[in-house]
């Protein structure tokens, strides 16, 4: 997963759109797309509107209401410039599996003390000479360790 911040989103698992963006970026093709980020079916995927950023003519066509660089899913699949739905689905499943494996770590976030409190604990541990192995008896260490052990 390129964007590790997705692992820690408390509200939603990665969408199919995340997987598609990753695959396009990895391919190096200069393609953009427009559609439902949370699409789940091949039928929806086939209805996406694509933008060929390398097209010579990117002017706007008032008759259609779209750019002349717009492409269909079928066109770009034929040209091999976008991944198939199956390839997107495989990547999406992997992203969701990784997201699920981070459930405990996401839960930790709301249990950690404020950064200022953590730093204060750290200061007092140092001030008390709790360095090396002794540091593991400090309040800073035991507080954080308890949270990590509780939310795996």
């Amino acid at each position, binding site marked *: 997963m390129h*964007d590790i*911040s*997705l692992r820690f*989103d*408390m*509200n*939603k698992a990665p*969408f199919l*759109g*995340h997987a598609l*963006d990753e695959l396009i970026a990895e391919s190096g093709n200069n393609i*953009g*797309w*427009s*559609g*439902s*980020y*949370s699409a789940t079916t091949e039928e929806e995927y086939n209805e996406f*509107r694509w*933008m060929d*950023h390398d097209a010579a003519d*990117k002017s*706007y066509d*008032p*008759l*259609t*209401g*779209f*750019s002349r*660089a717009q492409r269909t899913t079928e066109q770009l699949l034929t040209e091999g410039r976008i991944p198939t739905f199956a390839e997107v689905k495989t990547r999406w499943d992997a992203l969701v599996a990784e997201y699920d494996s981070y459930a405990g770590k996401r839960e930790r976030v709301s249990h950690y003390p404020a950064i200022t409190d953590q730093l204060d604990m750290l200061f007092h541990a140092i001030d008390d000479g709790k360095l090396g192995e002794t540091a593991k008896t400090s309040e800073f260490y035991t507080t954080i360790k308890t949270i990590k052990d509780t939310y795996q």
Partner: protein
Amino acid sequence: MATTLGPNGVTYGSGALQEHFEGIVKVAFTSSDSLNHSSGSGFGNQWQYVNNTEINMGVPENANNWYRVRWQTICDDQGSGGQGTGAALYRWTPSSGWNRMADQGHHSAMENDVGDLYWMCKCDYLCPVHPSYPTEEHRFRIYHANWNGPCRINCGIGGDLRRNGWNNNILEIWEIATGAIDSGLLTRY
């Protein structure tokens, strides 16, 4: 002659018939069904139609009427990095085709890498009847463009309307009669 309320409206003592609320010719609304819609990561003029945000207002009642257009949607960023979006209003008549009449700018509603953020993109546009084709049918659409990354709109995080599923967006257009309008310094275009 007394003022009477009939099947076609209110008839005044003078004989004048009022068929709708004063000043309001027509009101129409709809909602996009493209849940968590992304308008790509194009820049500049690469505005993308937001599926099914099209309203046909028919032929305007008067060449000097105005349309008030209200659009709102809920946005979400996609992980890290700054991302933004903005809405544009497009107008169509058979002779003019689709033209961008107004837009907010593609980063008018944006977050600058502040982490996970949800926010509202809302716009109120005032658009005149087409000055060259006032007797033609008028349609309107909402387009969006993204800035820097795949910001999504019409988020499925709650629901203010029901259209197939829950979608956080609404498009509403009012045709307002010229007699009820003081358009100030606004220019017709």
